[in-house]
């Protein structure tokens, strides 16, 4: 231990801060439900820009061997082939081009013939970097597994929360988590970002992160319920969120820093994934404070918890008196 310098960390957080979260819970809940409704509507009306994984078809990433790629010329060349539904877009650097070929009418054989035409037309000037082709049977299966994976992930989480806490917590968690998933999907629909298997992986990660947040807050609520048996529920929820706020902000900041680094430097292939994650972490942090916790206030929650520190310890009482003094309620 002698090699490690002994110095104090900088406790940046104003710990007597008592933000009145519950005062805005009505507004927050209404906004959240409106946002959820809007996301659902976007999903139903505008739909998602499914990638090759979910829609079927072929995606080819090529890199020009001679400097920047001439996309208009490529468009013209590939347009003449008579292959239906070919999209060409630039991808990352100017030399990189992404070509998508929609699922052709008929079976896999027709698709392969169309792809061969495109690849032959590209000629020697382009180097193939990535190729993905998914047939109709597999893509509909993947769509289904993706959906099931998200729903089952949600169910597993809810089952665990129910088992460890009370049903009110589980209900709060399921609403908060559905909110996160729906909003992320809604933003993907709004911006028409490509939605593929890696986006589903991102959704699952968001579930994981958001439930982590929700569990931390719920744990504190449960602890405070045991500690302050007479405190009014909304006051108690406010106290719990404030007490865990320094942790929420610090963990969130670290996660955001890492994800921003991945988003900016992590390359084009996982950019969409990282974008979904960034969105999800912000939405997930919001939801555990403004959806999960306030719902508990509405649902009412058991105040008689068995076990734990049922009797208030002397220094906890002192802390409570200090805490109460710091609360600024109108």
């Amino acid at each position, binding site marked *: 231990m002698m090699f490690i310098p002994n110095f104090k960390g900088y406790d940046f957080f104003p710990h007597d801060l008592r933000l009145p979260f519950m005062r805005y819970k009505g507004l927050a809940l209404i906004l959240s439900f409106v946002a959820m409704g809007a996301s659902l509507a976007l999903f139903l009306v505008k739909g998602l820009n499914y990638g090759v994984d979910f829609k079927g078809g072929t995606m080819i990433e090529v890199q020009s061997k001679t400097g920047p790629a001439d996309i208009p010329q490529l468009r013209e060349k590939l347009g003449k082939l008579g292959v239906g539904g070919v999209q060409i877009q630039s991808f990352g650097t100017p030399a990189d081009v992404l070509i998508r070929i929609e699922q052709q009418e008929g079976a896999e054989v027709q698709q392969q013939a169309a792809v061969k035409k495109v690849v032959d037309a590209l000629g020697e000037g382009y180097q193939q970097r990535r190729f993905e082709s998914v047939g109709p049977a597999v893509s509909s299966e993947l769509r289904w597994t993706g959906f099931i994976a998200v729903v089952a992930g949600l169910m597993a989480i809810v089952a665990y929360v129910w088992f460890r806490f009370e049903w009110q917590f589980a209900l709060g968690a399921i609403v908060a988590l559905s909110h996160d998933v729906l909003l992320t999907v809604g933003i993907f629909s709004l911006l028409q970002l490509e939605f593929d298997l890696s986006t589903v992986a991102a959704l699952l990660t968001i579930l994981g992160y958001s439930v982590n947040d929700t569990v931390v807050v719920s*744990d504190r609520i449960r602890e405070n319920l045991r500690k302050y048996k007479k405190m009014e529920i909304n006051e108690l929820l406010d106290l719990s969120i404030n007490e865990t706020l320094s942790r929420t902000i610090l963990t969130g900041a670290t996660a955001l820093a*890492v994800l921003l680094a991945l988003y900016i430097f992590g390359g084009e292939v996982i950019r969409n994934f990282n974008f979904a994650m960034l969105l999800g972490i912000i939405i997930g942090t919001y939801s555990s404070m403004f959806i999960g916790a306030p719902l508990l206030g509405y649902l009412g929650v058991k105040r008689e918890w068995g076990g734990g520190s049922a009797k208030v310890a002397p220094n906890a009482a002192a802390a409570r008196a200090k805490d109460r003094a710091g609360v600024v309620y109108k």
Partner: protein
Amino acid sequence: MLTFSRWKQITILAICLLGLIIVMPNFFPRSTVEKWPAWFPRKQLNLGLDLRGGAHLLLAMEVNDVRKDWLDTLRDDARRRLREAKIGVSAVGIAGNAVQVRVAKAEDSEAALKALKLMVEPLGNPLLGSSGQNVDVTKGEGTSITITPSEAGLRQRVIDALSAAIETVRRRVDAMGTTEPTIVREGTNRILVQVPGLQDTAQLKALIGKTARLSFHEVHPTLTAAEAKTTRVPPGFKIYTGETKEETDQVLRETPVVRGDELTSANPAFDSRTNEPIIDFGFNNTGARKFGKFTQDHVGKPFAIVLDDKVISAPVIREPILGGRGQISGSFTPETSTQLAIQLRSGALPAKLTIVEERSVGPSLGNDSIEAGTLAGVIGATATILLTVLVYGTFGIFACVGLIVHGVLTIAIMSLLGAALTLPGIAGLVLGIAMAVDANVLIYERIREEVRAGKSAIAAIDAGFTRAFVTIADSQLTTLACALVMFWLGAGPIRGFAVTLTVGICTSIFAAVTVVRLMIFYWLNSMKRARGPLTLPV
């Protein structure tokens, strides 16, 4: 209280050291690692195809092909059994999903039914009890008897065919000389082929894409295909179309003289006179005998070589071919003859395989991804370390050491499991690291809280760990539940993500809680020895 028994300390340090040793090979090039002594771990982390480059093909077997093939076999079998029982038939054919037999004389129907009933075989393991029959033989109107394959029988057939197909595909892929291909069954009728380092999939697809079922047939002595199309095809014969335009259609006997599975060798060669690409082949003993007898009986007449139901050539037999060796000529190019030779050597596929999913990543993109991921990782790690040390001082350094242990152990377990690290897998690693950081933040914030509540330094540390642990366990277990569901249900990228996340969660409790706690224990001891006033650096 915050104590560690000696054996506990040793165990924790030993685990860290072991992790470090297992991770070692990843920091050296493969050539160096191979020179290390055998007892030292030499396994490097497996990189997924998206990172190292390579091809991934998902092939589906046509279940209908298997069914059709089975019906053909059943029909031939029925015909043979009735012939052996000396029962005359007026017709044996395939109608829909069954084989229909019409017995010539009504008095023979009972005997015919009895002979055909012998085709019924129980399915499944005789010890564990049978799971049904392969076929049902029923008596229909008049003298007709129907042989219907059962669903369970078909399922068994598909399973057997898939296993055979995997073997054939493996032989064909191996013939390309690629390194470490993975060929495994997926679901009930699919095969996953992964070939690291391969980018141009054209050759691979050409090799796998053909069933390559070769057979040698007798040509109908008088009837031409054009005549047969206008009149009736004689029983037992069938019109086969030509592979190319030069080969006109032929009327051939449906049951072949010899099949490709009796070949023992097939090699690409060139015809000594015309210099055209050809294939030299050799039969095994029974094949040679059958072919020899046939050619002896049919000198001066043509016979047809059929590949995948198409006539590739129909030469005239000039003299009996008794040695069991011969040549196939067709309109080959040097490439196609090489390919066909590989396909014939590796045996025919039991049914056609269709490519239902194909992904390939070039090595340049894989390298770019690794470089970008490493850069982002270094920047992200630096930001995390700076933030933690700034906020938590000395304890922040402990947390960072814990993070390094976390990273090392995660990669060590991945190496041991042989699980491949994919691009989404890196995302799982990142989430695992975020959870490890979160565990430390939870503990330290809790310690600060306890200090503010007026506890002594040691009591605060102790309470911080115990209280925060409940929260950490809860949050890690919920995420673990989610990760396990993903692993169970997920396809491809989701699964890669779930693996690293699961491993990351398992190691983070050890690294972020136990290891950090041990470091704080050492720190407290050194503070006691210094006998100064104890103030917490958090």
